[in-house]
């Protein structure tokens, strides 16, 4: 897909989703749609580091919750409009991502992954013991009842998340086609060879962790306004970490479209399963799908599609 075509397509898809949403009267679809879009952002963000450079981040929940909690802090200090909150959340998580990467990325990839597991617990403990943001009791956010033009607040949040999702995907796609993306791919395929060939691996990895962390924080920033009550257990929910790994793996990690497919597929399945069966069971579904795909279809849905399409083209 050419860049111009991509932008037109992105705009059309975005506008179409939003246009469809105007026809919908049932509020539930906005709540469900918001979650799916949030996962598009998280999965895309994870994939920038995990899919492009091959470094597994288990700490999505930490970056996500940092974004959410910076909103809580700002809500108490001086309330700002949501787009500004998203920027702040992105900066906070991006800086943490950079620091984290600087400490651990010089080691083997496995240590980075273990350190991200550790980061999630350290940040959660800090937040739980920080009374200003509610500690373990949690914090309440009162959202304005109405927004100009749109009217309904949840529709506004949905629109914000839609824009964020389009931006995240556009960033991922731009990286994929740039020198940066080729550098990332070189690191993923053979880091030692890349380093020898003059690719500045540490700097590129730091760029990837910062960007990925920032996008995760941005996805988390509107969360307090969405749930109106935020406690550490929900902000740091393991489901975020599992989903943001499972979605790119199931969709396909090598291109920007994979995480979208994975997020829309898994996100929708989970929303349906939560409503019809139970919320514990839908997490089991994610786990089983993750293991099944990793074993049977290592290149995800995109990989499956490519193998099916290839014989026909010949």
């Amino acid at each position, binding site marked *: 897909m050419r860049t111009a075509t991509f932008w037109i397509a992105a705009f059309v898809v975005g506008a179409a989703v939003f246009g469809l949403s105007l026809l919908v009267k049932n509020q539930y679809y906005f709540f469900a749609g918001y979650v799916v879009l949030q996962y598009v952002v998280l999965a895309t963000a994870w994939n920038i580091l995990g899919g492009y450079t091959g470094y597994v981040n288990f700490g999505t929940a930490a970056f996500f919750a940092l974004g959410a909690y910076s909103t809580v802090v700002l809500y108490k200090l001086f309330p700002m409009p949501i787009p500004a909150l998203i920027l702040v959340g992105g900066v906070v998580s991006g800086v943490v991502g950079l620091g984290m990467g600087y400490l*651990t990325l010089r080691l083997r990839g496995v240590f980075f992954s273990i350190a991200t597991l550790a980061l999630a617990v350290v940040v959660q403990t800090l937040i739980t013991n920080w009374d200003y943001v509610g500690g373990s009791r949690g914090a309440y956010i009162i959202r304005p009842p109405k927004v100009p033009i749109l009217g309904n607040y949840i529709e506004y949040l949905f629109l914000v998340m839609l824009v964020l999702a389009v931006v995240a995907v556009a960033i991922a796609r731009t990286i994929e086609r740039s020198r940066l993306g080729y550098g990332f791919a070189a690191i993923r395929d053979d880091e030692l060879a890349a380093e020898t060939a003059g690719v500045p691996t540490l700097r590129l990895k730091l760029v990837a962790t910062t960007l990925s962390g920032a996008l995760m924080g941005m996805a988390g920033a509107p969360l307090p306004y969405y749930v109106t009550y935020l406690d550490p257990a929900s902000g740091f929910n393991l489901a975020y970490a*599992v989903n943001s790994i499972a979605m790119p793996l199931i969709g396909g990690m090598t291109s920007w479209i994979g995480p979208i497919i994975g997020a829309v597929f898994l996100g929708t399945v989970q929303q349906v399963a939560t409503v019809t069966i139970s919320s514990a069971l839908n997490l*089991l579904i994610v786990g089983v799908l993750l*293991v099944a795909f990793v074993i049977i279809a290592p290149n995800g849905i995109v990989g499956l599609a490519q193998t099916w399409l290839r014989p026909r083209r010949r």
Partner: protein
Amino acid sequence: MATSLDLLLGAVVAGILLGGFYAAVTVGVSISFGMLDIVNIAHPAFIILGSYIAYIVNTRFGLDPILTSIIVAPAFYALGAAVYQVYHLVFERRGDESLRGLAFFFGLLFITEVALILVFGVDYRFVDAAYIGTTLHYGPIDLPLRMLVPFVCSLALLAGLQLFLSRSFIGRAIMAVSQDRLALQLMSANPARIKRIAFALSIATAGVAGAFLIIIQPVEPSIGRDYIGRVFAICVMGGLGSFPGMLMAALLLGVVESITATFYGPSWSPAVAFGFLLLTLAFRPSGIMGR
């Protein structure tokens, strides 16, 4: 002043007991991650599974948890062998272990946890045994048997494994795999077979550690996650794959955690382990006793 000194002494003793137990929890990861280079982040899930088996047998038949864990150890061994077989066929042979292998173990961890929640719910479960609830007193020092029994058994487990690895033929083969895989292949031994035995052994220790865990504290499915950081922190701090280093790191972490819990409150203690891990990774990745 005397009281705070007593408090400190008590915290240190409790920490040492806790540390011994941490060593038993970590020994499996020390084998799988430290020696075999398999990043089994699902290890704590197998530990919790061991706890629940000890719980079921204990409530149904009143059998001692540690005895139960020794009886079911062969089952855990078989489970470990099966998991390794899948891991080897799907990831190791394709050279795909770094990213998808990690995701595989993460998925296993998650499936086990959710499955346990679906079956048992999120209530805390505990076991009964004659020694739980008894405490020995030596002056200002309290030695609860609830901690002392797992501590002694952990040390025995560790000593047994160390003997096995350094004296028996298979044990030496495992050490050989960890040192030089290619050389083992040239001696016409099959590294995959040795690794399967070693990995199965590591999962068997998880079952035993699970029994210790449920003696020490009530268990619910998601507490396994707290142990991921602890076991890897200890394993890395101890210098991958070395048992004496690992034991030192475990005791150190136990004491620091216990002091933190005594003087700052237990809600801070998870951050201690992970803070330790981050600092170790950042400044001394070869471990406290590393070269």
